[in-house]
């Protein structure tokens, strides 16, 4: 008896769901009022003052939301749970969003600062994921390199190969994300970091397995605190963190490995079904202004592709810093991640699990 009751209620629930789904079809999209722009950015990736300045100058209200990783951002944007206007994904994620037809072409006539202030080489670099430069306006960029503690290593670190040196057993911090970890092993073996060749990936995987006993921990963000606290001698880190960590611990040194590395770019994009496209353009244009971009640079310390902003940096050491603004032509084998498709992702993921469970 009761049993049937439960079943009935489950059925009832199902019917309710259908009804609700039907109602959802009949226009539930709230849509923004006249003066709004909904921005979805990385956590702590903007100086909050610049948002206030934008609101004051334009009268447009900024609804600001933050995400942790590209992969957590993607389903929220794709599902349309909140109708965002402007998002700031990384390179490979932008190519995925382009592939899935989620982005609107940017009309650069409405964003004059984007062409005027942002260096041409960054657009060139962006072609890896946005071949025609139609969708993305670079916001921050950087390299992935090695941070090492001068007092804890015997000779200067120059390349990835030293992450396989047994001298540094239990003193190495690796990145705990699939693509970043494989990038290191692929560059070590002289492969492209966008390879999907099974043979090459097998080699890279074996390198990582070989390295695992030497690794103290696979970390993402704790690499910063652990390096500052002298927990490890060598860590794989994003260049944007390097300036900050050096300030806290002067023994630390950042180097771009000789075997080549990842040059990443996070860019502003406008979503195809953005409710406030015009305001989105105004927002991006504002963020591309030299005086605003320099404020953001000083707040988040990630390299800015904005030449006008770089001119405005007062501290000469930072303006000419080889870490924040490396001359990329001096390095070999620099690449930018591209989206590898679902099969490529699955393959990488499978191999990474083999490394981790070994």
């Amino acid at each position, binding site marked *: 008896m009761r049993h049937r009751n439960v079943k009935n209620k489950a059925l009832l*629930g*199902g019917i309710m769901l259908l009804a609700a789904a039907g109602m959802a079809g009949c226009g539930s999209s709230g849509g923004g009022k006249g003066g709004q722009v909904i921005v979805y950015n990385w956590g702590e990736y903007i100086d909050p003052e610049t948002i206030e300045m934008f609101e004051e100058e334009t009268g447009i209200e900024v609804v600001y939301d933050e995400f942790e990783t590209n992969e957590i951002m993607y389903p929220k944007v794709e599902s349309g749970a909140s109708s965002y206007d402007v998002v700031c994904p990384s390179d490979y994620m932008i190519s995925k969003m382009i592939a899935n037809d989620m982005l609107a072409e940017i009309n650069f006539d409405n964003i004059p600062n984007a062409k005027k202030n942002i260096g041409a080489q960054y657009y060139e670099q962006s072609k890896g994921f946005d071949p025609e430069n139609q969708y993305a306006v670079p916001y921050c960029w950087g390299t992935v390199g090695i941070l090492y503690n001068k007092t804890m290593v015997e000779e200067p670190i120059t390349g990835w190969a030293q992450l396989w040196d047994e001298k540094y057993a239990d003193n190495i911090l690796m990145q705990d994300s*699939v693509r970043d970890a494989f990038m290191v092993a692929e560059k070590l073996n002289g492969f492209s970091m966008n390879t999907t060749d099974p043979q090459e990936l097998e080699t890279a995987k074996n390198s990582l397995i070989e390295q695992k006993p030497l*690794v103290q921990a696979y970390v993402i963000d704790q690499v910063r605190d652990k390096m500052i606290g002298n927990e490890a001698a060598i860590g794989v880190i994003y260049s944007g963190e390097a300036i900050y960590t050096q300030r806290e611990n002067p023994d630390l040194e950042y180097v771009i490995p000789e075997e080549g590395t990842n040059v990443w770019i996070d860019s502003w994009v406008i979503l195809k079904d953005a409710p406030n496209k015009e305001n989105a353009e105004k927002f991006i244009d504002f963020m591309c202004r030299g005086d605003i971009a320099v404020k953001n640079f000083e707040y988040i310390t990630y390299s800015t592709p904005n030449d006008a902003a770089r001119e405005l940096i007062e501290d000469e050491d930072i303006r000419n810093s080889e870490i924040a603004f490396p001359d990329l032509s001096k390095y070999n084998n620099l690449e930018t991640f591209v989206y590898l498709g*679902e099969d490529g992702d699955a393959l990488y993921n499978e191999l990474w*699990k083999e490394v981790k*469970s070994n």
Partner: protein
Amino acid sequence: MTSKNKWLSAPYTLWSAVFIIIPLCMIFYYGLTDKTGAFTLENITAIATAEHAKALRLSILLSLISTLLCFLLAYPLAMILTNMKVSQHSFIILIFILPMWMNFLLRTLAWQTLLEKNGVINNILTFLHLPNINIINTPYAIILGMVYNFLPFMVLPLYNALSKIDENVINAARDLGADNVHTFFRIILPLSVPGIISGISMVFVPALTTFVISSLLGGSKILLIGNVIDQEFTQASNWHLGSGLSIVLMLFIILNMIASAVFDKDGEGSML
């Protein structure tokens, strides 16, 4: 009685139908289909691959150890607390819950600060000329993190069950000549079984699926099933495999259900 009962059970039945069962169906949908939407069992059988099976085994092992440790730590504690002055009860319970009001991530990061090679504990040990402990980034640190985070989940139901035991029953046993050991094993322990069961499921279940503790305290060198599922969703964007593996984990609900049904019978049998 029955009609009133129906009315009483309605809110939760409805709620669980809409917010638990339907989402569950969605997980089953994803778990049983592939990218093209075709039916497949691949995501379920994926648990048998070497990496997944190993991760599952490790997770079960670590959560069993943590659950056992929690139980061993919590039971005496709950007994001591039960025997304390009545007016202090709520205060003491709150004291156990209070640490959880500091954010979970912050607390776990604080353990990192404590346990690291140059961490607080080792600094104190060095100062006292004692040997340093080096458990950060090992399974021991993961177990410590699990016990720390889930101990209150064990203490509270145990405390709840123990404080419900009628003192007269205990006194009666004593009057009839039972010694302490006897009273404990024949009276107190059996009467606290419902609390033990809910404590065990409240510790074992979250310990089995955790991934934050293993990545922060285990240095991500140990892959638990929670990490695998998390990685499928947040790094690989493969919801199908993530859901499939979650379905496998759900088998543990069923095991849990069977276990509590079995123990329940004993529990009811031994009740006066």
